């Protein structure tokens, strides 16, 4: 089966600094792929390259076997829908206004909403559970509801790949799970960057671990959440266990003295820090 999205030898440098280093990545139809890694690993940069918002890279990115440079911005928007971390409009946009923006890539000049468009918007809001909020003001919704509105907009966009950049960043635990479950249940191809490794483990079929612009691991969740690899990438000792309820891998990080990574670098932490334990959920 040929991949829906195929990235080969992607290299992006800015002022001599390597942002992305020889990235090879394929995404198949229907996969939910999580991109994980520490801050500055190149997660969002990779998404920007996929969306052709960043053009100064070498290597190739093919969508359905065709170079993305050969797609117009409008065509790309018909295939890729983006849900950003947070959108804060200045003016009082309604939920309807925001969701109907998703129709744009399929519309011509002078086009107005017709009954089919309205039906599509209603269906999308039904899918994200916000039917009753059609005329509510977007700014008045909670963070989780706003993300669901943006997902509804992506559904109206009828794209084949849904791209999410840290979709749960500003949300509490309840909304984090609600949003990611919703995304998983959509049954479309998803590529998302996620900070929380345990959330990624629970909702992604496959994880791509990035560090310093390089892919360190690209495999099913169980194999990527390897304590040894994670210790090295996040520079903190990592432990792993199986969640007794979901039976999914869970990882914990602890601040500790004198950690030695595989390249023999010493990671020293203070005594105070030793008492702190960082859990990823």
């Amino acid at each position, binding site marked *: 089966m040929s991949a829906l999205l195929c990235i080969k030898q992607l290299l992006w440098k800015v002022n001599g600094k390597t942002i992305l280093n020889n990235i090879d990545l394929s995404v198949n139809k229907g996969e939910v792929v999580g991109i994980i890694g520490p801050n500055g690993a190149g997660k969002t940069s990779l998404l920007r390259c996929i969306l052709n918002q960043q053009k100064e890279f070498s290597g190739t990115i093919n969508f359905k076997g065709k170079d993305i440079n050969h797609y117009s911005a*409008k065509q790309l928007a*018909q295939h890729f829908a*983006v849900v950003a971390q947070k*959108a804060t409009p200045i003016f009082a*946009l309604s939920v309807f*206004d925001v969701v109907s*923006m998703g129709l744009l890539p399929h519309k011509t000049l002078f086009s107005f909403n017709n009954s089919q468009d309205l039906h599509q918007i209603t269906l999308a809001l039904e899918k994200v559970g916000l039917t009753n909020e059609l005329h509510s003001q977007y700014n008045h919704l909670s963070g989780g509801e706003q993300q669901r509105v943006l997902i509804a907009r992506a559904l109206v966009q009828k794209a084949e790949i849904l791209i999410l950049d840290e979709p749960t960043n500003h949300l509490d635990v309840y909304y984090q799970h609600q949003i990611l479950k919703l995304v998983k249940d959509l049954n479309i191809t998803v590529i998302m960057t996620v900070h929380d490794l345990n959330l990624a483990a629970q909702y992604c079929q496959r994880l791509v671990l990035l560090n310093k612009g390089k892919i360190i691991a690209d495999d099913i969740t169980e194999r990527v959440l390897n304590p040894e690899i994670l210790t090295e990438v996040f520079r903190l000792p990592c432990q792993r266990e199986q969640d007794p309820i979901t039976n999914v891998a869970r990882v914990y990080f602890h601040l500790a003295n004198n950690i030695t990574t595989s390249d023999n670098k010493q990671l020293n932490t203070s005594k105070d820090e030793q008492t702190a334990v960082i859990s990823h959920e």
Partner: protein
Amino acid sequence: MSKFSVKIFLLTILCLASTFAALTIGPASISTQELISCLTGVCQNKVTEMVVWQVRLPRVLVGLVTGIGLACAGTILQNITRNPLADPYLFGIVSGAALGATIANITVANQLTIALPLAAFVGALTSVTLVVIIAKALKSMEQLLLTGIAVSFMFSSISQFLLYLGDPFATNRVIFWLMGSLARVEMSNFYVISTILIIALVIIVALHRQIDALLLGDESAASLGVNVDKLRLLMLALCAALTATIVAYCGGIGFVGLMVPHIVRQVIGVTTLPLIIGSALIGGSFLLWVDVIARSALESAEIPLGIITSAFGSLFFLLIMYRTRNN
């Protein structure tokens, strides 16, 4: 009939009624019946015919399209910059026009009738072009407004320096022109302004979805296939051409572009299509009534339009700040 249709219907009635009322109100009293018979070509009184066709109608029609044009330009500028305080006059348009008018006053004062609007138009466009070039050089189209303010001050200082060195009569002429007035407009001005207005409105309606996409941020719009920089430049050029034409014929009429879109957002909606229709209807009606006040408030003289709009505008500005603080 939807709520939106009812509101637009009522605003259309308001605009038509304002136009009709503005034609009847003035130093020469004209009854509704006289006006209707003159407009339908069976005017019985020669003086009334002259007042209606040569004085009132050009003035009211130019006032109408000026109000529509300024309100629409403000609407688009606020939406493309996502800045509720954006106004055509904050992009250096008036200071550019003033510099053009000052140079015309100093150099070709004898042929001022043609030279002043032409020089003002060139000055306004030069100013906006400079604003865009600087914003592009800074690689920050989001700072258009700040660049506009800087260019405004720069052009104003040059104008003031030229006026300081020049003839005191020229200073008076420029200052009076900058206050804005519909007293000297002709029917030909209406044709020019309405042609540019129609072109601008057609382009805005064609691209209304793209302009809406900007409301959620540049990245969001780009992900929907919008070429953000090109769209913003095109809209800015349209607003500049429209405002420069209006300023060239009517002088400086500030704050219409700032106030009207805010009122329409409260009443009708925030997306481009309803906003532009509402702004056109309210903007047109508003300026007609401002002009009625301008020509009938004092018995001996007309009050310049800019004085009245600025008085309303400054109070409105404070109201926006108060509401923003409370929200």
